[in-house]
């Protein structure tokens, strides 16, 4: 896989920067100059949204790809962080919002999201892998119903609107260009952070637990505690994504973390690929493109414009059937085809 840093401890250090493939430089340069030609819609709705959904899916990818834990509660963690920002910060619902400054409400949002994720993790990891999906889906829907019913704190069905990012360093972060760079920064930050942690003792232990929990216990690792810690870590990219999502749409309501979005996050991560942290961003981009242009695509295919769910569902099924590693897996397969030895037809591996 095109992972500049995952080739093992053997070649860590040295010129790590020099070994980043050219494609990454090109993609980075492209993303930096997008605002010079893209419209506000493209920056805000296409790229901004992709980065945000990518971050939330990244937290699922970290748990599922490295830890084998398919948590459906990551969108819920994001939603909770968004709610805390709305409740502690400023919104149009002046009865509830506390108007606290950003340097209190954002850390509060991260902290509460992390605590919540830790509790969810503790509940989910006490049973074996396959139960995780059930338990986290149930927790996610509990949160959805709770926020919909609770008017004291979560303002029930309508939620909060008029939530804007703070004016910091003299920049209006609502401005599409500023918001684009803000979302890009955090997306890249968490992408690199997950990549980095994947090679740390914590990340390696998590992958060991994914492959063989019994052996990890026999090696002296506390399997349960590692899993719970993974949930805590994964809360942070999700929470940042949730806060940005709240700012982007200027509102948060129970539907933000409803059953549909909760499942979409899993769909995005699986479509992109769970093997590498770039997968969720690829998946998010494809999802956002499909969602934004599904009407045109479907009409071009001669179908009714509102069948977006059918399109995404069939795409998801196709991926699960033919490429369990998602679009990244497809890409790797295509690349390997070109690297096959023409004589013996076998894969030529670069060791």
């Amino acid at each position, binding site marked *: 896989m095109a992972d500049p840093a995952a080739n093992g401890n053997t070649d860590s250090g040295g010129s790590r920067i020099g070994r980043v493939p050219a494609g990454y430089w090109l993609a980075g340069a492209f993303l930096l100059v997008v605002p010079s030609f893209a419209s506000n819609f493209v920056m805000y709705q296409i790229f901004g949204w992709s980065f945000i959904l990518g971050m939330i899916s990244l937290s699922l990818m970290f748990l599922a790809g490295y830890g084998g834990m398919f948590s459906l509660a990551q969108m819920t963690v994001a939603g909770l962080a968004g709610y805390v920002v709305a409740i502690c910060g400023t919104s149009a619902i002046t009865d509830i919002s506390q108007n606290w400054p950003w340097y209190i409400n954002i850390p509060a949002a991260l902290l509460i999201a992390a605590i919540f994720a830790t509790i969810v993790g503790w509940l989910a990891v006490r049973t074996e892998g*396959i139960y995780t999906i*059930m338990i986290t889906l149930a*927790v996610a829907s509990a949160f959805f119903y*709770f926020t919909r019913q609770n008017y004291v704190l979560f303002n029930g069905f309508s939620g909060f609107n008029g939530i804007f990012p703070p004016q910091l360093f003299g920049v209006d972060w609502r401005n599409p260009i500023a918001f684009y760079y803000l979302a890009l920064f955090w997306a890249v930050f968490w992408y690199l952070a997950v990549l980095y942690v994947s090679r740390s003792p914590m990340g390696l232990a998590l992958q060991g637990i994914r492959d063989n929990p019994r052996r990890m216990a026999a090696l002296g690792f506390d399997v349960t505690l590692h899993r719970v810690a993974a949930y805590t870590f994964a809360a942070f990219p999700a929470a940042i994504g949730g806060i940005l999502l709240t700012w982007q749409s200027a509102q948060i309501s129970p539907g933000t973390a409803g059953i549909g979005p909760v499942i979409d996050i899993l769909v995005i991560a699986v479509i992109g690929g769970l093997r590498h942290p770039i997968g969720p961003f690829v998946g998010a981009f494809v999802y956002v493109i499909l969602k934004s242009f599904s009407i045109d695509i479907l009409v071009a295919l001669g179908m009714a414009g509102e069948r977006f769910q*059918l399109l995404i*569902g069939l795409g998801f099924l196709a991926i699960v059937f033919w490429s369990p590693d998602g679009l990244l897996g497809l890409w790797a397969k295509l690349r390997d085809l070109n690297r096959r030895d023409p004589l013996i037809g076998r894969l030529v591996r670069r060791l």
Partner: protein
Amino acid sequence: MVRRFARAHPWWSIWIAVATLVLLYLIFAIWPPWLIALLGKKKLFLNSLFNGITLGSLYFLIASGFTLIFGLMRNVNLAHGSLYMLGGYIGYLVGDLTGYWLLAFPAAFVAVGLFGILLQYFVFRRMEGEDIRQTLVTLGISIVLADIMLWMFGGDFYNISPPSWLSGPMDTFFVTGVKRSSGELIYLKYPLVRIAILIASIVIGVGMWLALNRTRIGMLIRAGVDDRDILSASGIRIQLVFVAVFAFGAGLAGMAGVVGGTFQSIAPGEDIRFLLASLVVVIVGGMGSIPGAALGAVIIGIAEQFGSVYFPTYAVVVTFLIMVLVLAFRPRGLLGRN
């Protein structure tokens, strides 16, 4: 068995005995004024209790198939709610076309069961042993099915009406109060169709229990739930067992759709609602256990009904609270194997 349980868990036994006595008192006694002041009218209480039990019987119909499929194949069938809804729509069409309500049940059972066979044969058999991948496939199927059903049936509510001989209330022997003027006892009236469905679920539940415990194939399935290698070692054609169990579980979900369409209605979104209900029931009751599904279904049904009467704002939250408590103390569910 009772004695063994009592000896192993003395405190639990005492609690269960006390709770049973209190419940019996609440059901059969004529309530004194202080109790009415505390809990409201007895009629309200009895109604929520019975509604809870009948709702539980509906949950049981759905969750028993879910838990059987999960137990045997380790397949978390996230399309189970979609099968329920499919059954509801099919039942509606059949009932509407033929005019026979009873015909809707076998029609939904057979049609959804066949669909289950197709799923097992063409999809899940190809990913044997890949739990997560199977689960993801069921998720994809549920997304696709939901949209196709929305496409075909639109966003309207469909209500399956029971035949005239089953509609209307029935007199029961439960006393709700005393007439102040004459001193006559007032008896509870309860919808006949709900009672019929409760009885039907009990019959199905007992039938399943007998089939699982008294027949050779049933015992094999139970052994397979405990240890899947036994099945392959027993020389039986394991794929056939899988197909049969999946078809039966799917068919039950389809039949439950007819029940749900009669109780309430069929509309987009119901698939997710009943998928969640089966998840919670199975988590509470114990994964892979039929008696667990029955216990969990009754607990969740009653909790939901009492919740909606006594704490209307947080009715849904009560059920999830129960789930979290069970998970915290018995991660494998009340009757699950630890």
